[in-house]
């Protein structure tokens, strides 16, 4: 009931905002976004569940099932529910949306009701993605995310927005198609399973019930489906070499859209990897652990190196997302308790920190009208507060202790180091850890050039002060990052509870 209400309220708010007059849309959207925010916080506070949503013997929160369509032998059903993996992501979505809406007040000045309506529509779709437990329902929401994203980048973006929007749309849509075929083939291969219910499919697959599909035997089918789904989700994450749409999309997207893109949309990819590839086909994941870990480490290092080479602040943050998501993949492939738990925790931590960084870059851009590192220096003397938050966020990115990023990366490295699944795990871990050095390098370098030193800005604009509604969300985010760093248990306990059964049944070390 509660998940349905959450999604329905968000959708209705989206329509209400869409029809509202331009001038009031921003405030109305923010006010209405507090409803799902309050809802998700209430759900978090009353959350009571145990186990993994896809595995047997779990107890889900707010679960709801009813029949949708019975087509031939297959039943499609509405099935939603939350476990320790999806609950934090739902909370993250509602928090970031509200803050991103606040951050839209300054930069968005045309067609406002449409913009805010689409942002809320995006939120509703994302909530659906994280709570759906039937493949078809999940896929509907997964694709629903694309449409508002395409328009949000294409209309309100920077100079090359049309190119960036269409590139994002084509890349991720093709990826969805590949993934869809992979999963459906898997279900057809399970002769006895008559639904697309994700728990049912997962348990049947883990029970080794996969048969042949036409001339393709079960083993080949498993690998083919794994590859198809991995490729499909890797575009979304994005994993190098499927990442090229991301910097374009980020650079052209307006600040609030970048926040949503980095903060929540990328997590759809890793969340789906965890739910589908690593939960349903753990055997294949372990057989090919080395290759996947290679992808992860390349993403970490190459993403960081690319960030090092950029001169646009936003591009730096965009590429560093590629790097950070590489850690998540590493944690997943390690398949240990800390690895999986850390990967999930990193999704939340990175969501908050990257949201914070994009927001801070946005505030700097709003006041200076440039994002080029070479165009500015010494901002600290003009806008001390924003710069303080920016520096704090950057340190969060580098994994400073007592910040969420530290906890997440620590868990991931611990998990990866101990992994029994991954051959030469310490080597991969060490290589990935080197990524942190590069991260520290480019962030410190960029900050030193832009924020400190004598004040100078090479634009024709008067550098003013950031508005209160620009700075307030930064403060909220930094507080959340610190809170999660000081007490990771806020989310980590429920995450661990949900990944524990995965490790126990097909595990790779503690």
């Amino acid at each position: 009931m509660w998940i349905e209400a959450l999604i329905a309220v968000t959708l209705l708010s989206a329509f209400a905002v869409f029809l509202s007059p331009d001038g009031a849309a921003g405030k109305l959207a923010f006010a209405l976004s507090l409803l799902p925010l309050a809802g998700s916080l209430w759900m978090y506070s009353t959350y009571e569940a145990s186990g993994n949503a896809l595995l047997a013997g779990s107890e889900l929160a707010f679960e709801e099932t009813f029949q949708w369509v019975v087509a031939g032998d297959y039943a499609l059903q509405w099935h939603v529910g939350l476990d320790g993996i999806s609950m934090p992501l739902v909370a993250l979505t509602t928090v970031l949306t509200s803050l991103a809406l606040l951050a839209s007040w300054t930069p968005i000045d045309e067609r406002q009701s449409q913009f805010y309506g689409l942002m809320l529509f995006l939120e509703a779709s994302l909530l659906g993605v994280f709570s759906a437990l039937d493949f078809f329902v999940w896929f509907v929401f997964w694709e629903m995310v694309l449409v508002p994203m395409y328009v949000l980048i294409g209309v309100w973006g920077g100079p090359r927005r049309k190119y960036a929007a269409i590139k994002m749309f084509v890349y991720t849509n093709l990826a969805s198609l590949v993934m869809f075929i992979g999963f459906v083939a898997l279900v057809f291969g399970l002769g006895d399973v008559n639904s697309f219910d994700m728990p049912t499919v997962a348990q049947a697959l883990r029970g080794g019930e996969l048969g042949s599909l036409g001339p393709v035997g079960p083993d080949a089918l498993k690998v083919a489906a794994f590859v198809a789904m991995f490729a499909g989700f890797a575009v979304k994450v994005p994993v190098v070499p499927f990442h090229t749409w991301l910097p374009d999309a980020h650079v052209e997207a307006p600040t609030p859209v970048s926040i949503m893109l980095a903060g929540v949309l990328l997590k759809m990819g890793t969340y789906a990897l965890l739910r589908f590839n690593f939960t349903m086909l753990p055997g294949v994941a372990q057989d090919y652990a080395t290759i996947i870990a290679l992808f992860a480490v390349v993403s970490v290092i190459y993403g960081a190196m690319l960030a090092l080479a950029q001169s646009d602040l936003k591009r730096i943050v965009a590429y560093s997302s590629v790097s950070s998501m590489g850690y998540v993949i590493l944690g997943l492939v390690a398949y240990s308790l800390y690895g999986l738990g850390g990967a999930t925790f990193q999704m939340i931590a990175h969501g908050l920190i990257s949201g914070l960084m994009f927001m801070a870059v946005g505030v700097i851009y709003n006041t200076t009208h440039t994002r080029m590192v070479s165009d500015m220096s010494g901002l600290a003397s003009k806008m001390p507060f924003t710069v303080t938050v920016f520096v704090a966020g950057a340190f969060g990115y580098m994994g400073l202790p007592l910040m969420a990023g530290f906890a997440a990366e620590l868990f991931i490295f611990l998990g990866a180091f101990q992994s029994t699944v991954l051959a030469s795990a310490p080597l991969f871990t060490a290589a990935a850890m080197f990524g942190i050095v590069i991260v520290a390098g480019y962030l410190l370098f960029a900050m030193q050039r832009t924020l400190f030193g004598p004040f100078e800005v090479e634009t024709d604009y008067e550098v003013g002060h950031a508005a209160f509604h620009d700075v307030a969300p930064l403060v909220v985010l930094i507080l959340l990052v610190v809170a999660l760093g000081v007490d990771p248990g806020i989310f980590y306990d429920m995450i661990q509870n949900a990944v524990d059964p995965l490790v126990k049944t097909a595990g790779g070390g503690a």
Partner: protein
Amino acid sequence: MAAFELPPWMALAPALTFALTALVLFVVDSIDPDSENRTLVAGTATLGSLAAAGFAVWYLFAGTGEEPIVLFGDALVVDSMSLFFAVVFASVTTLVCVASYDYMADHHYQGEFYALVMLAATGMTIMPSANSLAIVFVSLELSSLPSYALVAILKKNRGSVEAGLKYFLVGALSSAILVYGISLVYGVTGSLLLPEVASGIAGTELNGVLGVGMLMIIGGFAFKTASVPFHFWAPEAYEGAPAPVSAFLSSASKAAGFAVAFRVLTVGFPIQEVVVGATASVDWVLAAQILAVATMTLGNFAAATQDTVKRMLAYSSIGHAGYALIGLAALTGGNDQMVLGASMAHLLVYGFMNTGAFLFIALAEHWSVGRTFEDYNGLASQAPFACVAMTVFLFSLAGLPPFGGFLSKYLLFAGAIGAGFWWLAAVGAINSALSLYYYSRVVKAMWIEEPTGDFDIESRPVGIYAALAAAAIMTVLLLPGFGPVWEYATGAAAALGA
């Protein structure tokens, strides 16, 4: 229905309602031929279509057609399949009448327009009930003849008149082919009633004559459904006709052609005897496969190369005829409910999304926006609500979730795979992916491009907006509400013995 029993002829109530409404409109028109009171005529037509839809839905829910009701010496049969399609026709006709209130506002002869729409709808509603080849021909002509006039109704518009002429010439030719085919089949089997045709075929040795006759009949259906090779008229007619008429023809008329083809082919030429059995004579399933692949490929590729939106939609509607043909092309002679039902369900969803898309064209023409993709640039900043509706229609036509078109297309392809025709599904899926290109061109123009010219939208026509809103809401609701549609569609397929 224990409380009272309706007489059997009342089973034809949807068709009778349309016919009656047409007569009422004629009376109104003859009393006051120059009447400008469009509220009266459009209102009457809308009420008539709504009543027809009400009857069809009521009968479906009440289970009227579960035991087929046979009338007029077996010539007409009302079962769940004919009622299912009656719902499609009545819904589309309602939308078209509501939208025409504004679109045809400047037209001098209001009464005749709506009367012709009602007459065509009457013919369409009888088509799925036709259990005799004679009725097939009569009802097909009853729906075609008013359609010719409707296409050409803008008498002073060269495009409209030319389209009408083209449509009429191709239509006349294919009617001749159809009736000649019927005569050949009659010569072989000695009957016009479909069940007797089927039993007549079992004992005949005149396979050559029968084959020619059947191919000619299929040709007649190809014309009505705008399938290759009788599709030439469609782009011209849809482009030249007033947009609500294009919507009517490309949605309802096409569905009617499919409905009659479904019944004639599966009942009159049963696969077990004609295609696969020991007495196999003519492989019409193979013909349907060739037509399906040719139609969807040609329709989609041609649509991708168009410059004007209306013509793109016209070709896309040919492409959709190809998808619907999968329902015939993937039949195996047993356990075919899934794929045939999926084809029918797709035609229902298509009825809403395609009608909606053409009605948006009607709105654009009402505003004199222009015809090309570029003319639609920046339309969303002027008319966001209508553009949301159009986006819903286009993405649904492309088969993207979260709209009704996603499930109906998915089930169609899944049904084809289930029947063993994975290659048909693959061709369909590739075409479907291609279609996203040209549909999203319109979306991109509306939402993302900057307006090229200065145009100001002065009026917000209530009728077209209402029809657009209704079609969009139905297109969206058909996704969560697909369960009952699917149930009735497979029930309709089962009624054909599939």
